[in-house]
């Protein structure tokens, strides 16, 4: 392809000044200069327009009393009725509290642990051990929550479960993880850690693979110990990845994952176990209320988008690269 008449430049500099003053002309020139890039962009944009944005009229279901048979257009309009019902529901405060607490626990515990595990794996120099553990550690991700729940019931069973007995012998008291409201959240977080930490390390390991090796050599020559190398080279090296993952995790905060909680909920711990997702599922299934679940989903999405844009802006304030 022939280069344009304008100077070849490095991507970081400003676009070439246009000969004509009009905004549209400037854009046209810009477009022509970068047309291959726009061409590359096209399939993806079409994808988003067709598969992601076209169905968005479905959001209107949240404002209607949707009956599948009638279709979206013919279903009666109810305005903010579902939202009103949702917020005025006496359980709303409890659901919100439970959801937020679990979200913060996951963010505060499971997220850092993923990074720590990735760093530990990175420090292993015995390649066979590293590769083996890497593969093993992501297996639980593939086991469905049904299995995890089954295993939990097995291990923590009152009076019988091996872990129950073990903890009993260590602490001297009975802890019924499965039905005691006080232990529900620790159990959930523990399950989450076991199931998804390994999987979460993959992206960090990929990032760690791109950290410049030369810096390590220089640091060692300067006499830096293990911990200082990690602190000053490794972590900064993956800082942008960490930030991006953090923003995304915060954006997903209200999605506690319905299946896990649904399986572990019972009459005795429901007061702390009920979160938005299980509530919506319950309502959706038992009452065929697509509209209601769409409305709650919409609410969660709104919160999510505010969180994402908010934390992204914060990150930029601190001169980090952010999400976009």
């Amino acid at each position, binding site marked *: 392809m022939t280069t344009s008449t304008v100077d*070849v430049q*490095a*991507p*970081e*500099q400003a*676009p070439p000044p246009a000969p004509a003053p009009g905004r549209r002309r400037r854009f046209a020139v*810009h477009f022509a200069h*970068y047309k*291959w*890039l726009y061409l*590359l*962009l096209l*399939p*993806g*944009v079409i*994808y*988003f327009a067709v598969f*992601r944005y076209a*169905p*968005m009229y*479905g*959001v209107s*279901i949240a404002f209607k009393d949707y009956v599948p048979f009638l279709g*979206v257009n013919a279903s009666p309009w109810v305005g903010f009725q579902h939202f009103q019902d949702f917020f005025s529901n006496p359980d709303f405060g409890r659901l919100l509290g439970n959801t937020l607490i679990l979200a913060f626990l996951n963010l505060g515990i499971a997220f850092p642990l993923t990074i720590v595990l990735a760093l*530990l794996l990175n*420090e*292993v120099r015995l390649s066979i*051990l590293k*590769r083996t553990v*890497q*593969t*093993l*550690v*992501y*297996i*639980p991700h593939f086991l469905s929550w*049904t299995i995890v729940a089954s295993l939990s019931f097995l291990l923590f069973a009152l009076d019988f479960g091996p872990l129950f007995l073990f903890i009993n012998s260590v602490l001297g008291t009975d802890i019924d993880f499965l039905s005691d409201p006080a232990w529900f959240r620790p159990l959930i977080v523990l399950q989450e850690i*076991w199931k998804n930490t390994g999987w979460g390390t*993959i992206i960090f390991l*990929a990032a*760690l*693979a*791109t*950290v410049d*090796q*030369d810096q390590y*050599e220089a640091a060692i020559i300067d006499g830096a*110990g293990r911990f200082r190398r990690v602190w000053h080279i490794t972590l900064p090296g993956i800082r*942008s*990845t960490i930030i*991006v993952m953090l923003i995304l995790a915060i954006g997903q905060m209200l999605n506690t994952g319905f299946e896990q909680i649904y399986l572990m909920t019972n009459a005795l711990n429901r007061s702390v176990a009920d979160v938005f997702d299980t509530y919506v599922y319950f309502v959706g299934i038992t009452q065929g209320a*697509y509209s209601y679940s*769409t409305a709650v*989903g*919409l609410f969660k999405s709104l919160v999510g*988008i505010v969180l*994402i844009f908010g934390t992204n802006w914060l990150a930029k304030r601190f001169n980090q*690269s952010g*999400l*976009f």
Partner: protein
Amino acid sequence: MKIHNTTGGRIFDAANYVFLVLIGVLTLLPFIYVFAGSFATEAEITRRAFFVWPEQFSLGSYEYIFSTPAFIRALVTTVLVTAVGTVVQLILTVTMAYPLAKRNLRGRQLILSLVVFAMVFSGGMIPTFLLIKDLGLLNSYWALILPAAINPFSLIIIKNFFQELPAELEESAKMDGATEIGILWRILLPLSKPVLATFALFYAVGIWNDFMSPLLYLSDNSKWTLQMYLRQVTASSDLLGTGNVDPNYIPPEQGIKFAVIVVATLPILIFYPFLQKHFAKGILIGSVKG
């Protein structure tokens, strides 16, 4: 490259190794139980709460699930759809991520905002279904690949990765007269192996584990994927106690459940080790600097 190790470093290494081995075992054990259970008789599974080796070896569960060609067909189908789908999805994502990594591209901010927006908002199951129907994709394997073709999260990470690559690479390539696409293909992609490998894995796993899409979009029984069997066999019995199950239904034996889990999980499980070689530490970055 020998790294001189301090005593503290050695202790740390030892403790680290032990810790990681422990973690490995903890994560492996439950799967071993499932694996062992798939080779055991129903009576033994009922009798023994947890075991890693069946006392009485039985192939009954596997005989049952492989007895009809339908299951094997599902296995082959799933492998093919996953393979093709992963390639398609990865290509779409990378070609979109690369231009978005150029900070001076007009419209970039807008498109990125729309992408992030789409990450959080969606039209819902029924509108998406109607769309697939209107596109004529019902009962086609493309309905399993296209709706989730570009994961906004993956797009953003890959874009960020491209942004982080040193600008000098592109500059020197441009000076040699390379085109944008040429730069992408010959220089950036080889350097992005760890990231590409990661998302190849993510996409592959996404397609492999997806049971909702086949459930909704495939009506032809001969087109089924593995996850549908898995769901069917394991989820039905979980409805017990909700009053929602046909009283005449007798849940499948646990051994069969385990066998289906093994067959539906093992292939994708062993995909990762094959990708691991691409996670090698930045060999190529060093070579460019020279």
